[in-house]
């Protein structure tokens, strides 16, 4: 049990996927303009990431490894995740329309995104068991959501600030992310796995 908790905490805070591994920056800067959107995106990413990491684990360990086809993993995983997200979108639209209204627009954005593909690749590299890789994906999603919401609240405040013209928009957002990353850096060394 302790192992799972440690992995979860480390994925959320220490190895935060955006701020210390730089995955999913496109979403991070694209959807962090207001807090509500950030919250929706964070939840969508967490859900999709956990489910797709489960699928990828099964695909890799139950199909590719027995068949000795691990060199194809990249091609297979990209297609698997893209089609899985597509399927998820159809299912949610059919059966849970209210959830679709909240999440729908984000789902297609994350179909081929580095953070969604990155987690299964990390799981494969670290040779995690099914439970551990699920926990890792969940932690990664929660960490991503936290960073996104923090960033969105900062950028909402920034709207009232007087920013030099050339730094407006993306420039100042990067510097802000740097400061946020510096703050998260304080967590490093807290847990050693």
């Amino acid at each position, binding site marked *: 049990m302790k192992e799972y908790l440690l992995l979860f905490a480390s994925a959320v805070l220490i190895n935060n996927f955006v*701020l*210390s*591994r*730089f*995955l*999913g*920056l*496109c979403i991070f*800067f694209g959807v962090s303009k207001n807090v509500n959107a950030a919250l929706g995106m964070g939840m969508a990413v967490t859900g999709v990431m956990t489910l797709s990491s489960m699928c990828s684990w099964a695909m890799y360990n139950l199909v590719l490894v027995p068949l000795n086809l691990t*060199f*194809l993993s*990249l*091609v297979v995983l*990209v*297609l698997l995740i*893209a089609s899985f997200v597509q399927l998820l979108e159809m299912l949610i639209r059919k059966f849970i329309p209210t959830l679709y209204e909240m999440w729908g627009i984000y789902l297609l954005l994350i179909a*081929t*995104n*580095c953070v969604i*593909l*990155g987690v299964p*690749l*990390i799981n494969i*590299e670290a040779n995690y068991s099914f439970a551990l890789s699920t926990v890792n994906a969940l932690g990664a999603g929660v960490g991503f959501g936290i960073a996104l919401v923090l960033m969105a609240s900062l950028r909402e405040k920034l709207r009232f600030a007087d920013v*030099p013209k*050339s*730094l407006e928009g*993306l*420039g*100042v*957002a*990067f*510097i802000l*992310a*740097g*400061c946020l*990353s*510096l703050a998260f*850096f304080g967590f490093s060394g807290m847990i050693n796995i």
Partner: protein
Amino acid sequence: MELWKIFSKGLVLENPILVLALSLCPAIAVTSSVVTAITMGLTVMYVITFNNVVVSLIRNFVNPKVRVPIYIISIATIDTLAVLLLKAYAPLLYKELGIYLELVVVFAIILARAEVFASKNSVVRSFLDGFGMGCGFLFAMVIIGIIRELLGNGTILGISVFGQAYDPALLMILPPGGFILIGYLVALFKIINNYWEKRQRIRGEVA
């Protein structure tokens, strides 16, 4: 002249990292030293050029409804080749670059060039477009790599520049330094582009 324009627009005016702000993940993740930055830049250059050529070759046979999955398969195959080659011949570099090498598959810039340019243009033009974008990517990666390694470690390609007396600013090779540096570089390129456009406009009025 026109071909030169296709090639050169990726270098500065539509630089994939600094102006279009696409594919930023590697720009920060692997630029803490110049060697990794160059390796990553070359890999991306190879994938984007090769993929543009492939997409342009098959552009008349692909049903538009299934084009995106086909582009993705093509990119993934080309990238797998690069990954396997590096794994076999440069295992140390491969280890340092880690999963970012595999994540080249999902770089927005590669799919974007295939969709926007290569699927509509001839092989030669697509090749030049991909090559130009790749050069722009490599160029930006190397600049970021040089600045970060120089400030954060006092070296370029592992060779000491400032001598023993230099006290390195460790922040620059840590993640936060990467974010902050890119912020300033984006601002710098915005100024350059604004200046350039103004000059072009004045030149246009004179002519």
